């Protein structure tokens, strides 16, 4: 991909090449899910592609595909190196595949690094924009810091266990040694950094806001989902015996994240920044899955991943074609571009958790998973969901109820509108028949 940039100068061809590549990957993944092993590489037990990992990979690849289809053309406007951006996206994809299926802590670290280092580059890719440079530096510094914590945690756990494998032999003997607990807490902190859980979220708004909107879209959705997958896999496999030790901490993380994410989002004046805080709030909901750690939680995370990614990618796709990111820029969109406005309305309704959309079903699964463990956390999460309605509906209100603002016409061609509507239909299908997705786990 990277080297194709030398030969091919037309951006459209590069884009189609990338899309074709993702389709091939998706096809291979589906084949693997059906049980056909096309290429068998012995990974000496470091990678294990179980059904859950494969389905998550499928969701991630599908989100990447939709992302490329919707936002591919917006990437061209950032710089001259479209082929490099696409190549970096594929590298991140490789990292994501590693991080959903790891069996060794080393692979976890490797995968996280492979995901984040290209992201530092992509964040700063708008070289002339000061905000972009600042965001990139901030991301790099804090990312390196949290990777250091990750490594320290891995080291301590290795010291306690004697091996990098997820379920070590020495577990039953040294279950709650202070070395183990310390390592576990450090790992939790590092993962909380990566998924932007409060109080480790402070890098997120600036980085998401400074990065070019196209790449914010990717970061806020696909990458976040992949890291959550890593989070859940780590704590499910590796620290299942210490459940009581870390469950309380995750509850605190979830509650703080929900509170800070939602309350701060209410006060935002820029839609892009609002969406960054909203992604923090949604991460809070996904943390409920880590908190509960039962079958319903894992199925719910899958559904949450799919619906949240689709909705946010769609919203960012529209946002990346607009110059003005304030709420007023959306005024009267329903009268000028009714289908785009309708699709956007469905996306926002899904993020808010209104029934009939995938977002509601996802929240439902999360609440159901969490209710069995803690009534208060579930109630708190629901209350915060009610708060989130305020800032999600502000856009819907601007689109449908406010008069049209005088501004330049936006570029929404028919192909884009059609694809956007297709994604919106997918969101509704997930909302009415979520079992079509979840059933794929158990075929």
């Amino acid at each position, binding site marked *: 991909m990277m080297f194709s940039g030398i030969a091919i100068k037309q951006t459209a061809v590069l884009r189609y090449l990338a899309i074709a590549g993702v389709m091939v990957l998706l096809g291979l993944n589906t084949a693997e899910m059906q049980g056909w092993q096309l290429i068998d590489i012995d990974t000496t037990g470091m990678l294990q592609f179980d059904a859950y990992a494969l389905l998550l990979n499928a969701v991630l690849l599908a989100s990447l595909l939709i992302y490329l289809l919707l936002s591919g053309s917006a990437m061209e406007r950032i710089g001259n190196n479209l082929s490099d951006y696409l190549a970096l996206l594929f590298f991140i994809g490789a990292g994501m595949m590693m991080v959903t299926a790891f069996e060794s802590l080393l692979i976890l670290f490797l995968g996280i690094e492979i995901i984040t280092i290209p992201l530092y580059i992509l964040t700063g890719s708008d070289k002339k924009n000061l905000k972009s440079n600042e965001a990139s530096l901030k991301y790099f510094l804090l990312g390196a810091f949290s990777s250091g914590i990750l490594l320290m945690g891995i080291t301590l756990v290795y010291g306690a266990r004697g091996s990098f494998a997820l379920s070590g032999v020495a577990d039953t003997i040294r279950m709650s040694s202070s070395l183990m607990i310390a390592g576990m807490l450090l790992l939790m902190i590092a993962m909380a950094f990566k998924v932007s859980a409060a109080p480790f979220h402070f890098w997120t708004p600036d980085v998401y806001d400074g990065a070019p909107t196209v790449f914010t879209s990717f970061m806020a959705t696909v990458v976040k989902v992949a890291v959550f997958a890593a989070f859940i896999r780590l704590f499910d496999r590796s620290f299942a015996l210490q459940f009581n030790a870390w469950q309380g901490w995750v509850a605190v993380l979830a509650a703080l994240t929900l509170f800070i994410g939602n309350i701060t989002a209410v006060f935002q004046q820029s839609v892009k920044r609002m969406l960054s805080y909203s992604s923090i709030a949604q991460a809070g909901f996904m943390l409920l899955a880590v908190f509960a750690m039962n079958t319903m939680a894992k199925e719910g995370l899958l559904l949450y991943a799919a619906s949240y990614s689709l909705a946010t990618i769609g919203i960012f796709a529209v946002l990346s074609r607009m110059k003005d990111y304030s709420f007023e820029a959306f005024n009267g969109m329903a009268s000028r571009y009714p289908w785009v406005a309708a699709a956007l309305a469905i996306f926002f309704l899904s993020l808010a958790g*209104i029934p*009939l959309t995938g977002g509601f079903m996802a929240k*439902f699964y999360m609440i*159901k998973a969490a*209710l069995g463990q803690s*009534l208060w956390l579930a109630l708190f999460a629901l209350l915060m*969901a009610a708060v989130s309605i305020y800032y999600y509906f502000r856009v819907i209100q601007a689109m449908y*109820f406010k008069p049209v603002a005088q501004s330049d016409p936006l570029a929404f061609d028919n192909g884009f509108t059609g694809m956007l509507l297709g994604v919106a239909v997918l969101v509704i299908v997930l909302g009415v028949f979520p*079992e079509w997705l979840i059933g794929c786990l158990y075929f």
Partner: protein
Amino acid sequence: MIALLIVLIPLLGGIFSFGTRANKKAADLVFMLFTAGLLTLTLLGLTIFNDPTLYRFSAPWLSSLGSSFSLLLDPLAKVLCLLTALVYFLLALYMNGKSVQKPAAFYGWLLLAQAGMMGVFLATDGLLFYFCWELALIPMYFLSSIWGGARRIAVTFKFFIYTFLGSVLMLAGLIYLQSQTPDQSFALSALLKVKLSTAQQSWLLWLFLPAFAIKLPLFPFHTWQPDTYEEAPTPVTAVLSAVMVKMGVLGLLRWLLPFFPLAAYQWGDVIMGLAVGGIVYASLIAWRQDDLKRLVAYSSIAHIGLMGAAAFAANLASLQGLCFQLFAHGINILGMWLVVDVIERNLGTRKISELGGLASHSPALTFFTIIIALANIALPLTNGFVGELLMFTGLLATKSNFAWVLTVTAGLGIILSAVYTLGMIRSVFFGESNAVTSRPINLSIQEQLVLIVIVVMILVFGIYPQPMLDVTAGYTDQLFRQIDISYLFRKF
């Protein structure tokens, strides 16, 4: 099958209506056709096609979550579906010939709201109930925010968030209940069998109650209502007031009282006290109102307060009165809203201080209005009297130490309703007429027809209420046995 059709027809009608964007007349026609069709279907379904197998519909939906798409037309649903179909048809008749901006979208949203509300009335599956409960809200949000008055956007937003907050608490309660069923099912029958201690019932009651108390509205959860009713366009207000409110009552009767009878008894005093206090509170405020719409809104809170108290009074008389009043209040309040709309359309003002002396120039309107107003006051010979008499009897007989206090306070509310309603009649229709009101209001054929139908129903059901009472007699018996404390303890 009939149950499915009752939900499907307005749904299809709504989607259809959005498609008639180009042609104004087509939108009117579609609305009229679909509402008339639904009314015919409902009437036929209740009379000729009386087969109980047609009243059930069940389809698998989310089997891994224990939820199925099941509908049932039980007697309570019969009354409410008939009311909804009738209210909508009368509205269609009334709106015929009147212009409204963007009629395709307006009627489309109205029909979609009707589909949602029918779904709430018919659902016998907890998740489906929640779905329809929320979905009925979205069309109202769009209707009020686009076609409403000056402060519509902020006011409707407040209404939406407030209602959503209540619903979300109910969702938590529902999920908890479902987790306690042996087969993890959301079906009403399964949820009813869950054995709960009184303590559990108590906090579950307070999870479910806000949703219904906000919807009704019950004092002190009523603060969204006067503004929302005032800012919404009057046909939408009529639907909100006549039909959507009944969603809250159905919630109490089907999804709260049978689940938590012990807790309902324990907290009954508090809740009835709040409801009855709300009657007096709202009536006093209604007395001071200058704006006709706000007056009718507060009057509606007062009537609903009595209905809420009757639900928690939990004896046969109050329940029968409640079921009857569901229909009666729907018709009466629809009449009031239509009268307010006629006055506003023709004279351009809703302020009582600017009106007066309508009787001498618009005798027909005065005649209809007075009968509807008397029905609101619950004068004997009107349907309002039957319902309220039964509810008062029930309130007096309730198993509470404060039965007398509650009844007397509620009675005070009725006296106050006479005060403000008759006061409004005197100020608006009698007295000196001014430049504005000396224009005669000539009712169109459609408006006359609608008002005649309403007045006829008021009088007929006031004089001969037995058929309507018979419809719900068996249902109230069964409900009584589910929630009456002495009966429950006798069983053990």
